[in-house]
């Protein structure tokens, strides 16, 4: 086993894991054994900047917000991919160009969808 070329890596991995987990475990143990817990209703309440929380914290967001997500993908995330695509365009193979085309077309479809929904018109 020790002759395996990856043996030293495994030892380092275990050491790294222990380095991270030991302080966490010790902190947990310290909290369990020594921490002076004085729980009460106010202390255990949901923290809301000092105000009393109203209703349930597990609220659902309206699904209509997906339009914002689409617009964000088209105008923000797409630009991040388009720039390196344009820079490396001359040296690209057919498969890379096709993959990029599919990606752009998918987003164009999203743009058409958002446009038809009237998201792009203000006021």
């Amino acid at each position, binding site marked *: 086993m020790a002759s395996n070329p990856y043996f030293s890596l495994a030892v380092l991995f275990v050491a790294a894991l222990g380095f991270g987990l030991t302080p966490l475990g010790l902190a947990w143990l310290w909290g369990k054994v020594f921490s*002076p817990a004085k729980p*009460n209703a106010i202390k255990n309440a949901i923290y809301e900047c000092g105000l009393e929380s109203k209703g349930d914290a597990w609220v659902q967001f309206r699904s209509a917000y997906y339009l914002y997500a689409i617009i964000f993908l088209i105008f923000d995330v797409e630009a991040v991919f388009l720039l390196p695509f344009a820079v490396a365009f001359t040296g690209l193979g057919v498969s890379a160009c096709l993959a990029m085309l599919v990606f752009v077309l998918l987003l164009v479809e999203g743009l058409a969808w958002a446009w038809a929904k009237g998201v792009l018109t203000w006021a």
Partner: protein
Amino acid sequence: MAFEEGLKIELGKQGVIVTSLQELYNWGRRSSVWPMQFGLACCAIEMIATTMARYDMARFGAEIFRPSPRQADMMIISGTVTKKMAPQVVRLYNQMAEPKYVIAMGACAISGGPFKQGYNVLKGIDRYIPVDVHIPGCPPRPEALLQALITLQKKIDGQPLTGEGRPRFLDAEAQGEFPVPEQGEHDLEPPSNPAVWPVPLTINK
């Protein structure tokens, strides 16, 4: 176990460091007092200045301002506490983890300051929560806040872990809840917490 102070100094001269568990524990506590990140009024500007490079609160281990009461050790009441704000301040103090300390910064936090006669200003936060250090000033200079922090560190250093005079968090009997006042018709209800602030006797002649 107690040991003689003279013996400790003598051993220190010979290069032997002797300490007690209490000193070690308190040294650790006083060297990492994390304040809560919240400001109430103009004193907060001085508090911010104290944390910056010129005054550098980090020298005393108190630079990590926590945005949540769950992670904070110290509350700096930096400014005027209005009656609208007082319930929130008391609730935040309640939500802090033990052990917790309070510095009342400036004239307003101590007594209401120049707004003492105002109908909407709380006349001192110590009516609801126990204050450890008061700093006078309007507003206090950053040096004064550092002085308050050093005073608090000295107080933490002197706290015994057992027996009489031990802090609240080590006393299993002591309760840790401080009632949050509510907005009444004319004033906060109750107007003060008798457990932390005995109402002074007024004698009308």
